[in-house]
Structures are given as structure tokens and as C-alpha cells.
């Protein structure tokens, strides 16, 4: 393990939603699991999130949205990353997301959707698997 770079994660809140408990608890949990976490704070546009992801050189982006705007916002983040030629950064999400919305989000390039009740452990495992180094 020596000299190995820590996994860098961007946790982001796209849109106008201010419910940030999940984003903050996950950020702390990932840090405790040994990852480096940058949390954007609330009310970020997809373009801002993509720019931060590139600038910070993160390995993965996690999005949280509880307002129901995920079908618009999550795919926009993937698009914005593509526009910045950073489409290889995997994006996952969570929040209040109806089951029937998940296939569409995955088709749009979101790698995984986590629903309420997910453990931090599950997310750590997912990130470790998805980040290829």
C-alpha cells in the first residue's frame, strides 16, 4: 500500500435543494475510510460541479439530490464532464430517487444510484471497485 495515492472523491449538491445531511455524512464516512473528499456545498450548477471535478482531479463524483430534480441534473453533470473531456470520471448519485427513474439515469451514464438506508460501507466498496488505478 505504500506511496499509494488516496482516492479523491467530489461530493456535490446540484440544483436548489438544501438537504445536505446525506452529503455531509457520506463525506465524513468516506474520509474515515481513508479517502480524500471535497464537498461542494449546496446549490451548485452541473457546470460548476464538472469544473470542480476537473480542477481537483478527482477519481469519482457523488451527487446528492432530494428535490426530485435528479432526472434533469444528474445527466447534465455527466454531459458537462464530457464537454470538458473528463467523461472518464465515474458519477454516482443518491437521495430521494424513485426506482423507476433509475434505469433512465443509468442510461444517461450515472453508474449507480443509492437509496435511503444505504450504508457508508456499501458506498466505500462501490467506489473502491469502480475507481481503476
Amino acid at each position: 500500500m505504500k506511496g499509494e495515492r488516496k482516492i479523491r472523491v467530489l461530493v456535490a449538491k446540484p440544483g436548489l435543494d438544501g438537504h445536505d445531511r446525506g452529503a455531509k455524512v457520506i463525506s465524513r464516512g468516506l474520509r474515515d475510510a481513508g479517502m480524500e473528499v471535497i464537498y461542494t456545498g449546496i446549490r451548485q450548477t452541473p457546470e460548476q460541479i464538472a469544473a470542480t471535478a476537473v480542477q481537483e482531479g478527482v477519481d469519482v463524483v457523488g451527487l446528492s439530490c432530494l428535490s426530485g430534480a435528479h432526472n434533469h441534473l444528474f445527466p447534465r453533470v455527466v454531459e458537462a464532464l464530457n464537454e470538458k473531456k473528463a467523461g472518464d470520471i465515474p458519477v454516482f448519485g443518491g437521495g430521494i430517487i424513485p426506482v423507476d427513474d433509475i434505469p433512465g439515469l443509468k442510461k444517461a451514464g450515472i453508474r449507480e444510484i443509492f437509496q435511503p438506508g444505504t450504508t457508508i460501507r456499501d458506498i466505500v466498496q462501490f467506489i473502491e471497485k469502480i475507481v481503476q488505478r
Partner: protein
Amino acid sequence: MKARKDPKGELKRWEETILTKVLDRFPERRETFKTTSDIELKRVYTPLDLEGSDYFAQLGFPGEYPFTRGVQPTMYRGRFWTMRQYAGFATGEETNKRYRYLLDHGQTGLSMAFDLPTQIGYDSDHPLSVGEVGKVGVAIDTLADMETVFEGIPLEKVSSSMTINSTAAILLAMYIAVAEQQGVKPESLRGTVQNEILKEYVARGTYIFPPQESMRIVTDIFAFCKDHVPQWNTISISGYHMREAGCTAVQEVAFTLADGIAYVEAAIAAGMDVDSFASRLSFFFGCHNDFLEEIAKFRAARRLWARIMRERFGAKMDASCMLRFHTQTAGCTLIPQQPDNNIIRVTLQALSAVLGGTQSLHTNSRDEAYATPTQDSVTIALRTQQVIANETGVTDIVDPLAGSYAIETLTDEIEAKALEYIEKIDSMGGAVKAIESGFMQNEILNSAYAYQKAIEDKDLIIVGLNEFVAEEEPLRDILKIDPEVERYQKEKLARIKKERDSRQVKRDLETLREAAEGDGNIVPPVLDAVKAYATVGEISDVLRDVFGEYRES
């Protein structure tokens, strides 16, 4: 005559004989038992726990200072709490339909949910509104939308609560304007605007302006209502959202009352006499799973606020010392797994709010871990309240758990611990400073993280989540907001903008700017502007320009 037994000696005897014998053979489930607020619970409470407690100082009678036992002398023997389901989604038309349905089914007050653009002062056609229009609440751009929401609902008969903060002055003005169209005078309107900006910085996130400027709008609303809408609750000082963000019961009481202190101080600093506005302050708490702790929490909050108002602010009127509150069951306790179990959680939470003496209640729906609830789910939630009110009998005795050794001890402990927090916040310079420094936010995050860890370590069992798990099909019958809502709303907005007198709007916005730049009350010019069909976004932009915008650090 037999000699009276000595309680201390008797307890010791019981512990050393009966108890020890059982503990040797059957150890308890845990080493220690604690509430969510980390209050260590005794195995059994006895008269010893209340030794030296002065009934009249600590409890008194219902409807009497310090109101531990309730704010009214008869409580639910007189009338039940207001059953008030938070609702609103999509358009004015859809929301109007849901409101009429709820009123037809015995709901007794309205509670208005707005979409995020309305709450943050953007019109439906703003670039940041894309994807958010009509989600989590109804989209309101102009007075025309508000007219649709309340069509056929007589505003002199219902009381309406509006969950609106940064843009509270605008939505309150629209409500007054709709009432005037119905021929209802402002002085006969009953209801509440949340108008509670401090907790938005801490937990909910719909702030626009910096704290000082926001506090000025809050107190402008106090002053306006005092003179023109005297039956209106001018603020709902809210612990709910901080609780949802993860704080404990003790922190909820402490942070809510600390915010309350800041509002009272701001109003006094703005030149108002404490007894002229304090009786219109109202509160809003969550109701979590820990049944007994929650009941004690409500009672402790009432007593502590009464003491703060009398001792700290010298309030003379009893009404100024009454903590009247709305309760919502805890959304954060609902899970998508085995969603029908959520009905049971909500029932128990609602029961503890009633035993705690709430004035109004929202019961959550079973499907809220998935989406905004369907009509069927909301109906079950409303029926839950009706069953508690009409079938359980708990409403026939005022404050029925008073005198319970356990409840009274917990009430005392919560009050004492909350007061410790408030003193700490005082020493930081008050709630505004404590928020600016991130103190409350950090405390809440620590508690939220501890809660999550407790679940993951199975220290806390949540049925269907980390124990008693079952394979199941996810809930699919949920409410979907038609994406067409956004287009419809934008078209309506464009039409209104074309039809209105734009020169009048311009003049009204200019008058508003002058009031905001000076020290005039902003509510009257906002009222003129909404009557001219100025939009939520236009009015907010004027204020953004004058007050600036807050950015989370």
C-alpha cells in the same frame, strides 16, 4: 398504624434482593440504556427521582405559567389539534385540487409547500429553475398562481400555514391580496408564515440574503402583522429541519430556543415592546422515534421558553410566554424498505406529539422515502391523526403523563441540558454568531454521523433496514410530477407579464427599492408590487440588489 416505609431503604432492599437475583441469571440486553440525546436511562424511576421537586414551580396547571402541562387549560377536551398536512405540488390547479380533497376529508388547516424556485426567489423561467419547477411544492410566480391555489377556498374559514422563509414577505402579501379579492380583511386572516431564516443557514438551505439583512425582513414582517394582520403567526421558529439534519432532541430544543431568543432580541432592537409581538411567535418541532424522550422534549421546551420570556425578556403577558407549536413526524425515520412499516412509525411519533401537547400536526406518508406522497398515502396519514384523536382516549385527559417519575425526570434533564447549550451559545454572542461560526452545523453533523454509525454497527435497530430484512418488490405506485408542468408554468408567466401594466410594476419595484435602501418597512411596497402582478423573481432581484446574497462558506 404501620410506620411509613423509607423509599431509599426500600429501593436498596429491592436492588440487593429481587433485582440482583434476576440480573445474575438474566443479564440485561445492554450495559447501559440511553436516549438519542445521550441521556442515560435508569432501569426504574421512583419517587426518589422527584424528591424536592416543587409541583407549582415545575408544572403548575395547564394554561398557566410555566405551561409545562400545556398552553390551554382544557387542551384536547376543548378541541383537537389542527390536523394540517403539508401539501402542494406542480401547479396552482393541482394544489387546489389536493387542498379541497384534504378539507373534504376532515383536515382542519392548510399547509402550503412551495417549490424551490419560489422559496429561493427565482421565477419558473430562470435558468436555475430547470428541473425544479413544481417539485417539492407548488410553483408560484405571480399573484395569478396564488389566486388559482385558493380558488373556492374561503380564507376567512381556514387557517393556512406557509413554509416560506427568504421570500415570506412576498407570499404573505399574495395571501393578503387573494383574501382581499375574496372580500376578506387582513385582520380576520389566520395562519402562519414560517419566516424563520436562521435555521435555513443551519439546515434547510433556502436563504438568499446575508443574516443581518434577513433578520431585518423578519422583523419587518413582525411589525407589519402586529398592525395589520393581528391574528397571524408571524414566525414559526423551527427545530424540525435541524432535527431532520440529524441533531438530537436536546439539541433541537436548545438550538430552536436559541434562535427564538435571537428573533426576540432583533424585534426589541427594532423598537418593539416584547409583549406587543411575543404572543404571535409560534414554534415547529419534529417528532422522532424515541417515544418517551419526545414527550418529555415538548414539555421541557414549553417550560424553558416560558422561563426565558419571563426571566430574560421580562414579558408581562402570559400569552408572551406560551410556546405554541406545530409538529411534523420525522421524515428522516422513514425508509424505503417495507414502506408500510412507516405507517406504524408515524403513528407512534404522532401519538407522542399529542401526549406532548402539540397545537397542530402533520403526519408523514409511508411513501416519502420515495417521492412526494400520493393521495392514497396522504389519506392514511390523515386518518392516523383522526384515529388518535377519536379512538384512543388519550385526548380526554390533559397532559396525562404528568407525574410519571420517568417522564418528569426526563423533562427536567432535557431542560437542564438544553439550557447548558443555550448558555454556551450566549457566550458565543448568540445564535447568529453561533451559526456564522458553524457551531450549530458541526454539532448537528456530529450527531447525524453518530446516528448513522449506530445503525451501521447495529447498535440501533431499524426494522427492515438492519434487522428483520426481507426480499421485496420496491414501491412503484408513487406520485410523478409531469415534466410538462414547467412548460405550462413558463407559458402562464409569459402571459401574465404581457397582460399586466408593466409601468405600474416598474414604479412599484422602484418604491420597494427605496424602502429597502432606507429603513422603511418593506412589506407594504411588496404588497403593492404583488397586486400589480410583479413576479417573485422580480421582487427578489430588487432585494438581492440592495441586500446582497449569502454564500455558504
